[in-house]
């Protein structure tokens, strides 16, 4: 018994390892073929980051983690929420406007902004959920359309709601009053002093909540069951349509949080330069972490680490930092492939074990007969 368990653990670890090794080899091959210094690139990428960089990595990972959680909620239900990108941008915009108006004092204002972001994200994703549940429109296509619509809508509203600084062509919403900023957490007294987003705490809480709701509640069980088999879910009295809308809205609410660390922690307004493209990274990270709260965290840290470490590549070794995007994409692909390969291998091992056991039984029976 224990030996099969050991095998299972070894197989479980070997899949992500295999994926990382494969991604490492493929990236090296690309670098080699392009005549770039392979060793120097890895030397920089895998060096120990300085304290200042650690702060950036944690900040970035916080944002990516929330994006990954948002995608993962959909995945658990077998829904592809490609629309995290549009959802977080439109949510961050609305939150920035609400917080900028400062109807409430201090942290009440912050709280209201976060609540608005979640509500807007949920509603925007809810459109795709309702279309899927009532009209059978694939959520992949509708969320792609909604992403593009969100881009246009936000660009239009931004020009309406923004105040333009003198002599600058950067448009942005009103800056949030300082008493509503989320304080950062100091992780090293330095020098240099290193701060990370205060939102990191909320991200961790969200991770716990994700784990708890999906794994420990009736609702989470229903959601996962629906994702595994719709017919089984229907048979046990789950309304699939309601679950689709609920899962999409939850995913959207989580997506609404993605922009919050940046909005409340560093930019303090929503402008035309607000970071974009976080949604697609989240999908990759959710896949990497196998939709597991801890796994997604590891994936987010890995992606943020690679991004941060690649920044000085151009200056130090004259290689474009875009090489890291190749690595990240390859990791996603190799992770999925290696899980499949390892799974097939595991199945074969099991089949062989069963065959051996049967063989043994047959031979003992034969002996009994002849005896």
């Amino acid at each position, binding site marked *: 018994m224990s030996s099969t368990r050991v095998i299972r653990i070894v197989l479980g670890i070997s899949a992500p390892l295999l994926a990382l090794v494969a991604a490492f080899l493929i990236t090296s091959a*690309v670098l080699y073929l392009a005549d770039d210094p392979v060793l120097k690139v890895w030397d920089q990428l895998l060096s120990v980051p300085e304290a200042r960089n650690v702060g950036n990595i944690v900040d970035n990972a916080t944002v990516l983690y929330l994006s990954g959680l948002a995608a993962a909620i959909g995945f658990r239900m077998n829904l592809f929420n490609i629309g995290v990108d549009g959802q977080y941008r439109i949510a961050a915009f609305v939150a920035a406007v609400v917080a900028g108006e400062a109807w409430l004092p201090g942290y009440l204002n912050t709280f209201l902004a976060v609540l608005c972001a979640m509500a807007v994200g949920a509603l925007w994703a809810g459109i795709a959920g309702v279309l899927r549940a009532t009209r059978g429109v694939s959520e*992949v296509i509708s969320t792609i*359309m909604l992403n593009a619509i969100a881009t246009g809508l936000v660009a239009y509203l931004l020009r309406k709601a923004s105040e333009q600084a003198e002599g600058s062509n950067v448009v942005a919403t009103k800056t949030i009053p300082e008493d509503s900023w989320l304080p950062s957490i100091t992780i090293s007294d330095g020098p240099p002093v290193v701060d990370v987003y205060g939102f990191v705490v909320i991200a961790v809480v969200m991770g716990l909540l994700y784990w708890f709701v999906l794994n420990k509640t009736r609702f989470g069980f229903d959601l996962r069951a629906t994702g595994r088999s719709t017919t089984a879910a229907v048979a046990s009295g789950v309304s699939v349509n309601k679950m689709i809308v609920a899962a999409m809205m939850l995913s959207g609410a989580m997506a609404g949080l993605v922009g919050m660390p940046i909005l409340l922690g560093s930019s303090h307004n929503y402008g035309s330069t607000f970071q974009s493209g976080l949604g697609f990274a989240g*999908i*990759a990270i959710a896949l990497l972490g196998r939709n597991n709260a801890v796994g997604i965290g590891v994936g987010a840290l890995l992606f943020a680490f690679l991004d941060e470490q690649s920044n000085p590549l151009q200056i130090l070794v004259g290689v*474009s930092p875009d090489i890291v*995007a190749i690595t990240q994409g390859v990791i996603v692909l190799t992770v999925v492939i290696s899980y499949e390969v390892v799974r097939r291998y595991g199945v074969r091992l099991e089949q062989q074990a069963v065959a051996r056991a049967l063989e043994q039984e047959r031979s003992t029976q034969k002996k009994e007969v002849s005896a």
Partner: protein
Amino acid sequence: MSVPATATGVVEPAGAAPKRRLPRFWIVYAILLAVLVLSILEVVTGANDLASSGAIKATLIGTMPIMLAGLGGLWSERAGIVNIGLEGMLILGTYGAGYFGYHHGPWAGVLGAILMGMLGGLIHAIATVVFGVDHIISGVAINIIALGAVQYLASITFSGLPGGGSTQSPKVGDVQTITIGPLSDFLFDVEKKDWFFVSELAAIARSLCDELSLLVLISLLLLVLTWWILWRTAFGLRLRSCGEAPAAAESLGVKVLRYKFAAVIVSGGLAGLGGGVLALVAASNYRDGQTGGRGYIGLAAMIFGNWRPGGLLAGSGLFGYTQTLSLRQGGESIHALLLAAAVLAVGAALLQARRGNLPTAGIMGGLGVLLGVTYFLIDTVPSDFSSMTPYVITLLVLAFAAQRLRMPAADGQIYRKGSAG
């Protein structure tokens, strides 16, 4: 059965009753009807750029990348492989066109675009067909890899070249264009006469014989060729059988995995060519971010077109047209289209009401009234909204007509060899 509902002029002929088959060459009638609607609109609203030969020529060029991406999607989805990596293959195509086009001339650029796209298709084929990876995961990964790879390669290969840099290639020569001089002049005369409907038809004809890029012609021929191969040859029948019932196909001796593999590679090549058109015809070099999500739009156009070549052409034409209009005095033209959309929506609502489908009729009627009121309240549509138009239309069409669409039965399912037993 569900009742069709359409909110746009372009798909109007598709609005026939479900059991009735579309007339042969319905796409021709559809185009004629669209031209008629546009002619009426030009008279009613006074917008004059709706069907000028300039607008139509630009539409043709704008449509081709979307159509080729959709055609790529058609090949792979007909063989049962969902291809969301079209965007990445399109990106690879733009780079291939820029690199090979600069070094070896425009036609080498075309070939380079196709080959780069096929490379993307190869990755997708290996991941999905050989390793049985979820099709959408593989597609998302390919989009990430392609974007990173192209930016990385561009910074290596284009930096330091005259006019080139890490975000764009040097200028690439143009592919040849065809002009039938006398005919073009004659049609231009007719167009200038401003005869109702006739001038608009002349404008369309003129856009096809005045500086028509060979690549556009080739793309249109590829559409016809795809239709012929997939629906008129034994090869095509077998390929489609892999997307409908792979187990049954295998039991009849079709090498399912081989067909799927080939289809995905062709799919990549077509999308790559789409990138080539973007870089060589629509622009004159590779630029970072040139595709602007056209791969996704192509996929949507294919679904809009119900996984058929004619519908795909209509869908991508609709996207190409609205995109082009929003670039050329967009506010005014899109404003005029609002009126058409309002009238069509109300008309569709009446149709629905007569068939007793009251909820849909209510929604459509409300939408129509809303659009009509908007038309009379504003003079021009802000540019951000005109760029949103195609997406909103797609969403509406999907919402009202999704039940009529039928994708290949085994689309997106992972097939393993020997499943036929």
